[in-house]
């Protein structure tokens, strides 16, 4: 059911996927915090072949003024794909898809960020997709939460993102571009590991209730792995210089 017909073998008889991973293995993730000088906080994330740069500004004055809220600060997110991020040139104007992803990422970060402390201000998060290879929304969310922490914005927890899905009738972790195109389902998850709360959950495709439960289970497991890398990125920036306490 579902998926497009291609000649790619998504899963071979040994349970190895098209890029050589096992079914419950994430791609290689690396994160570096504080890569931009002019932003208050920033991060660069490589999530497999995805390459994303995130810059955070704020809290700062809200422009236009009518958007400001006297009770709380506001969070604004912009997810944008560079024209060269995909095979065929992408029009740099915001597409329907980008507007949607900006919105879901904003809503996934909001439970973590404590904006009540800064009424009448805005925190701006800019996520620039330099190279896309499936699962950019999870990768951008992961990078954005590191950049927010780097900016020193108070947060209840970091938000880690990782997708689960279904391809070749098997539940898999961290769906890549081929599996997204030819697979049967994609279920991105945003998760706060210490509070044990899900902040982003979408589903594209069809899953049975059992498969869905399995996806959530391994997806959260993937988020926990990603969280360890987020943690390390922040520790590397702030605690590695000089002697340790």
């Amino acid at each position, binding site marked *: 059911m579902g998926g497009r017909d291609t000649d790619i073998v998504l899963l071979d008889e040994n349970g190895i996927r098209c890029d050589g991973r096992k079914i419950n293995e994430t791609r290689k993730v690396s994160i570096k915090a504080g890569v931009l000088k002019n932003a208050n906080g920033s991060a660069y994330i490589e999530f497999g072949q995805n390459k994303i740069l995130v810059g955070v500004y704020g809290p700062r*004055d809200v422009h236009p003024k009518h958007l400001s809220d*006297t009770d709380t600060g506001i969070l604004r997110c912009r997810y944008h794909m560079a024209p060269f991020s995909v095979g065929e040139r992408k029009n740099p104007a915001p597409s329907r898809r980008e507007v949607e992803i900006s919105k879901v990422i904003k809503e996934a970060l909001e439970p973590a960020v404590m904006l009540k402390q800064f009424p009448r201000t805005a925190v701006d998060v800019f996520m620039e997709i330099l190279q896309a290879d499936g699962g950019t929304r999870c990768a951008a969310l992961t990078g954005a939460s590191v950049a927010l922490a780097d900016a020193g914005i108070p947060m*209840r927890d*970091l938000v880690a993102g990782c997708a689960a899905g279904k391809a070749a009738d098997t539940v898999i972790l961290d769906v890549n571009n081929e599996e997204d195109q030819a697979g049967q389902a994609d279920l991105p998850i945003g998760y706060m590991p210490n509070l044990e709360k899900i902040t982003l959950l979408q589903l594209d495709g069809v899953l049975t209730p059992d498969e869905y439960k399995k996806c959530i289970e391994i997806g959260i497991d993937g988020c926990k792995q990603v969280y360890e890398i987020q943690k390390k990125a922040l520790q590397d920036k702030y605690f590695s210089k*000089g002697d340790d*306490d």
Partner: protein
Amino acid sequence: MTNEKKRHVIPGEIIVSGPYRAEQNTIMEGNNIIATTIGLSDVHDGSVRVIPLTGGYYPKDDDLIIGKIVSHSAMSWEVDINSCYAGMLPATDVFGRDFSSHSDNLSSKLGNGDLIVARIVNADKTRDPLLTISGRELGKIDSGELVYISPSKVARLIGKRGSMIQMIESGTHAQITIGQNGLIVVSCENSDGLLKAIKAIELVEEKAHVANLTDQINDMLEIKSD
């Protein structure tokens, strides 16, 4: 209750569990005290706080700050205080109670770009923080070198009961005014002392999380003076 050692924490990390008070940069979630910012955790006498290593300046009542005049209206100056909120300095604070917007010209006292040492009178976040420059050691800055550091590291630069800043001042014979918002004015009669003081301030900013920083700064000040 025993005092725990300082630990490096990141947002979401559980510092302690149990009957503790959650103070600066921490929240209570069930039975756990959680850090909300990157910093050093400090558990002391049943209360928990995190000394931040990053983040901007948020105005607090009675803070001494250094600000730059950005513009003025008929009744007040707008001051850039290196924060998400702009400071307001009312004209009556400078001209006195008989200030008249017809006869007094605000730009005759403070022009755009002037630096002031000010104290925050009221910072309730419902409106912009109110400043005053009437008081001892407050007012317009005429001379000195301006240094910027991250506002989260100001506490480290001052040190316990001012130990760090006193050491730098006595080691270089410079006069240093520290604004809580991360702006610092250094003035010194000889240029060597001035440069050395600025170097020391920059070193504190770079190594704010290091434990024996006071000794390192002391070494640096002594080596250079030989």
